[in-house]
């Protein structure tokens, strides 16, 4: 399964959810968000994940982050891909970042997004 297919089955599928390992999702995200090979379509998909409120169905033996939920940690990683690698391009996604900040349950993620929003103003 390629990275986009894996992420689609996590965030975009209406099928009975499979269970995933968090590390596999992070790897797929790293591949899809790599600035060298990133397309507009994959970028749009990352923005869609950023605004998603879907819970990741994790395998009971999956590793998890401690400071924030897996969903919020994933979003913080997407922000790095989108904003830190190309702040000028990230201006196009200001509204998406604002929505993600509003939806975020983690205070840490809200602060990270707030910091990114300052950079792209």
């Amino acid at each position, binding site marked *: 399964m390629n990275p986009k297919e894996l992420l689609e089955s996590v965030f975009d599928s209406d099928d009975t959810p499979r269970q995933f*390992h968090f*590390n596999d999702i*992070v*790897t797929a995200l*790293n*591949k899809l968000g790599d600035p060298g090979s990133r397309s507009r379509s994959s970028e749009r998909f990352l923005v869609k994940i950023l605004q998603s409120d879907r819970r990741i169905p994790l395998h009971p033996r999956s*590793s*998890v*982050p*401690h*400071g*924030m*939920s897996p969903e*919020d*940690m994933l979003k913080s990683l997407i922000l*790095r891909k989108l904003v830190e690698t190309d702040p000028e391009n990230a201006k196009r996604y200001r509204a998406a970042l604002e929505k993600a*900040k509003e939806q975020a*349950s*983690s*205070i*840490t993620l*809200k*602060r*990270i997004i*707030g*910091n990114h929003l300052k950079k792209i103003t």
Partner: protein
Amino acid sequence: MKQDFLIETYSVLFRFEGSEAVELRDYRDDVPVGMDNKPEWLKGTHNYPAAYVKGTTVKVKVIFFKQDSTGVKCKIGAKGNILDIREREVILEFKGSSGSRGGISEPVEFEFDGPLPDCIGLHDIKLSWYFLPYRGGDFSEKRFAMGESRHTVCTTWKRQRVVPDELEAWSYTAIMEWTCQWAAGKDNEKNICDAIIGNLYSSGLRYGVCGWEVRGMLLGGGGWCGGWAKLFQAMANSQGVYVHYYFFSLEWRTNFLGRENQSGWCALVNIDGGQNQVSPTETPSVFYDNTVQFPVPENEEVPIETIAASRYRFFSKPGSYRDGHCINFLEYENKLYLYDPSFGTGPFELDMKLPESNPDKPVGGEALASFKADYLDMAFKFLLGSFCNGDKLYETIAFDKEGQLLLVPQNGMTVETKLIPDVIESENGEKTPGITLYWI
């Protein structure tokens, strides 16, 4: 409804439009208690607590039940174990569903005959309701019983605060009851926080299980540090006390101390189980503990203890923050106190200012001196890094070439935190902060 009296107390509502009651929510359904659709006390059905700022004079709205629909003019009041309900004259009409003989009255507003206790507390209030019927031009002197109602009323230190992106002006019932019990009689921010941290274990919630949100923790029985710091913040706020929420993550510096292959620091390592856990819930791995000297001088060796153990590891990532730990700060009388609810420790009085939240700029050295000496050295017995000991490199391998955190990271050298100087001076006089971290 089983009818024991001619007129019976049916429901008691504490929180309604215009009342002084604090908003509470039941964590099981996340719905506010009180208002029109959920009176706190409904005979034989449910009994939720109510909450007020200490010293408030409480008003309630009460609905009565009568087996027939005849209206009644009477005086109604209640005798209580702590406070009475002030007697008042009412005319009750009873409306039932079609076909039923009896019915319920419109809500009638009553007031307690004095303020609630002027301190934080959890009060078990019993009210024996009675009425004096109007007969022959006057009210009867004989009291007729209307049943008893029993209420848990919480009194808080202050009203809850709204802090954008962090806190709202309501509490879950469980949190309110816990904090009013734990902090009973406490009268300043510090004493309240100390009482909460000291009693947190009795919530039964555990560290080291999945949970990052307050409600999720209450439903699931515990959580990780992100949840615990939010929970502690919500608990303090239930008493109107604001504590700051902070996340910190070690900066993973490569070529550390000018030596290729050395990295400092890759992970925070905790050997304690955390709240209501005997030992860490992580899978055991092999650690190489240096409890003797740091840094180890080039071409010298120190004894390393090899140990297989379950320890929590919160991994950073080269070049940026990743995972870390969440704690709370209280600013009180120009002093800064740290609380670590995940491990039930604190307060730690720190000789520093509240850190600036900055995900881009790590801080270290002298700026962390008090944080390290007064908290980190105790809270995280070891920090994990990659270091040489003589000819041998103890290398931490946490990520693969694609940047994926390995399922089973390999531990390099675990250095006892207290051995790490605030500032490390190399032989050529160059100074490097011993530890740097991101505050968010």
